[in-house]
């Protein structure tokens, strides 16, 4: 019986998954991101953003434990326990996460693999541009043609706060903006007049190339929202690569204090990676992103052919000398030539090695 939402990864898929992880590990390391490993068992914390959805276990003391359901919180706990001697610090992680429910936001498995990074202790256009540049580099390292979409959920948040409307009305406005539901937004603003109506109606349609940033700056805006947009303009200058913008992003603006971004690829309907800046939420200054490995594999649709070894060696010294020449070699398990040849033919192994010599099977 295999639990729902889990999978076996057979050859060659398992190897390809490891190769992709390795490529990202190398890339992040080249930018100064050190790998960390975090425990899969955590103390259950009702305040954790995914507490509802985490798998829980009971410790022998009767305390409730939870299986790790996301990395950022785990990393923040690590830094509270072991504060780094020098800031800023850069960390990368890769590993398995578990959720009791399948969540369309996180890929559709209950046991899934995420790889990502956190850049802690720095804020501002240079730090933001670094995280965006790495997201683009990560897509390239995986051989994906992706587009990065960047938004500032805080802008919508600031304008909503400025209206001073009751919280439940603000929540409905936010939901309408998030769904770009202009008809509903108009109806809500008719029932709850506010001087910020023009700005709120303009925000959902401010998506596209970087010209929408100039359009946004032409609107009536609260002070902080304008400052954030100007900082984003500076970030994009530092980045120097085209991205898409959506200034109508209106989700979780209490969590993402600065930018929020995702990557899309043509012909695949779900985001490949997601991240942003969450200063002061778990850590004083932090930004990062994570990729779902299962999703990346789905987009890549790699060739599902196994690579057979180059040779089958009949003795250990031959195996070692062939391996020293860079070959991939298996050791024979029997003296029976016929059985070995039949096996080699079926596996697609073309050479048999004996006493340091190789010959075709």
């Amino acid at each position, binding site marked *: 019986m295999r639990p729902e939402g889990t999978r076996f990864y057979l050859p060659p898929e398992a190897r390809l998954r490891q190769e992709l992880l390795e490529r990202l590990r190398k890339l992040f390391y080249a930018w100064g991101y050190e790998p960390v490993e975090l425990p899969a068992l955590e103390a259950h914390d009702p305040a954790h953003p995914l507490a509802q959805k985490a798998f829980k276990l009971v410790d022998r003391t009767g305390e409730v434990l939870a299986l790790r359901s996301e990395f950022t919180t785990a990393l923040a706990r690590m830094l509270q326990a072991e504060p780094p001697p020098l800031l800023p610090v850069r960390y990368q992680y890769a590993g398995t996460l578990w959720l009791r429910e399948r969540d*369309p*936001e996180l890929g559709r498995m209950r046991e899934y693999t995420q790889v990502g990074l956190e850049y802690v202790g720095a804020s501002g256009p240079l730090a933001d541009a670094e995280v965006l540049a790495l997201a683009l580099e990560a897509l390239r390292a995986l051989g994906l043609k992706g*587009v990065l*979409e960047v938004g500032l959920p805080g802008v919508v948040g600031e304008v909503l706060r400025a209206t001073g409307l009751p919280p439940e009305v603000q929540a409905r406005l936010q939901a309408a903006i998030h*769904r*770009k*539901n*202009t*008809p*509903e937004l108009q109806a809500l603003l008719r029932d709850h007049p506010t001087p910020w109506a023009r700005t709120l109606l303009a925000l*959902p*349609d401010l*998506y*596209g190339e970087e010209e929408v940033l100039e359009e946004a700056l032409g609107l009536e805006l609260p002070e902080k929202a304008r400052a954030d947009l100007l900082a984003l303009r500076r970030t994009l200058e530092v980045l120097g690569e085209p991205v*898409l913008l*959506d200034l109508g992003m209106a989700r979780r603006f209490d969590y993402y204090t600065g930018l929020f971004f995702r990557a*899309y690829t*043509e*012909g*695949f*309907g*779900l*985001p490949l990676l997601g991240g942003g800046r969450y200063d002061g939420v778990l850590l004083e200054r932090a930004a990062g992103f994570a990729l779902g490995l299962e999703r990346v594999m789905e987009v890549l649709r790699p060739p599902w052919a196994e690579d057979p070894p180059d040779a089958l060696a009949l003795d250990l010294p031959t195996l070692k000398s062939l391996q020293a020449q860079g070959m991939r070699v298996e050791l024979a398990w029997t003296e029976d030539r016929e059985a070995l040849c039949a096996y080699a033919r079926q596996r697609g192994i073309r050479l048999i090695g004996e006493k340091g010599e190789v010959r075709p099977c």
Partner: protein
Amino acid sequence: MFQEAYRALKEAGLPLPPVEGERVLLFQGEEVALLELRNKDVPVYVDLGIADAGVVGKDVLLDTDRDLYEPVDLGFGACRLSLIRHPSSTGPIRRIATKYPRFTQRVVRERGWAADVVELSGNIELAALTGLADAVVDVVQTGATLRAAGLLEVEVLAHSTARLVVNRQALKLKRALLKPLIQRLRERSR
């Protein structure tokens, strides 16, 4: 719905393939392919990006937790989601039958009723007539069917019309086509 949506999209200048003759599921055009789906399946196809955009009633959207863009109210296909009871059911509601379980569950939670929600697939009035449930939540167009069955429309819970829904990635990646289309559909339905 299909005919109305076809006309609206055609008038907004979308190059649609012709749909005369044989009933098929997939109309493949030069630039645009059309899928004819059961209304409940539209959000699934659009959320997963198999379809870039779709037309579906707000009633269906109220019952899905899929995260779609909903930029245009097309205005046709008007109906309402109502709470319906048999005249003999006057006590507190204990069991509600519906084709809209998520929406109904939300209503029950918001109002603090101690009621179970039973999901059925069709002919919901029968649940009220046979006593399977002491209330039902269903779609009402004119109310004639209800009155003929001797049921009461107790309360309108939500109004519904056809909406254009768009996949979150497609809106951005195919904005050259979709942004003007949305603009024209909005002007048309004003």
